């Protein structure tokens, strides 16, 4: 009964919040309308959300977000400097990162994280989902890059979504 009435509580709250932001004012009417939408949309789109998401370590998630935010800022300054220095000074390259993550959400979050952080864009996921091909704009040491991705981004995501 509960699963049918409220299949994705986190999604419901997110949708209500998005509605409030879109309306851009906090009145009781909009709050009710937002919660109503947040309740109805997951029920009508249930078939799009086959997996239920479990967040196992909220604190790790919070720390991961802070690390990510900091890395995004650093990444941007790095890439901006590389662009200003000119195309002839960069050493681009592809690296193949073996994946330990299994869940769809985990892999897509990792791919997005990689694309937003220092000089790397996730380029291709192998059909068996075992490895992710990453393009780096300035790869002088591929081993260290793979190591950084695995330790800094994949390890916390594993802890958050797939502890076992």
């Amino acid at each position: 009964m509960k699963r049918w009435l409220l299949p994705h509580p986190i999604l419901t709250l997110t949708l209500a919040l998005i509605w409030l932001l879109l309306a851009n004012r906090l009145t009781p009417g909009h709050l009710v309308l937002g919660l109503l939408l947040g309740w109805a949309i997951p029920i009508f789109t249930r078939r799009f959300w086959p997996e239920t998401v479990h967040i196992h370590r909220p604190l790790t998630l919070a720390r991961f977000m802070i690390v990510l935010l900091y890395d995004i800022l650093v990444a941007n300054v790095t890439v901006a400097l590389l662009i200003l220095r000119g195309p002839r000074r960069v050493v681009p390259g592809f690296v193949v990162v073996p994946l330990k993550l299994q869940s769809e959400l985990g892999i897509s979050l990792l791919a997005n994280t990689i694309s937003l952080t220092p000089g790397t864009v996730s380029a291709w996921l192998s059909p068996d989902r075992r490895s992710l091909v990453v393009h780096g704009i300035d790869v002088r040491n591929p081993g260290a890059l793979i190591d950084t991705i695995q330790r800094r981004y994949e390890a916390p995501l594993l802890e958050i979504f797939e502890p076992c």
Partner: protein
Amino acid sequence: MMLESLLSLLILLGALFTFIGSLGLARMRDFYTRLHGPTKATTLGVGSLLIASLIHFSTQGSGISLHEILVTLFLFITAPVSAHLLSKAALHLRVQALVRPPLEVRDADGDSA
């Protein structure tokens, strides 16, 4: 005064990053290196402009205005997705690159796409 300086700084930084992103797009020598400018620098630049707009309209006296957060978040979520799809398409079409893509891609990309 403090507020105005902060706003000006955010606006200038945002515009500068937007410009650098497009500069990277125009200047780099192969598709994959061009991809980095727009996905990172431009996203952060526009994000910074949106934050400036948020602060500007929140301090106008007509209540706080937070819907800029929506666009910022949306851009930060969609930019990596479109970058990934673009590079996937480029690998599929075998666009000319400065370095050869790894063997895995060349072997597997007959049908998977």
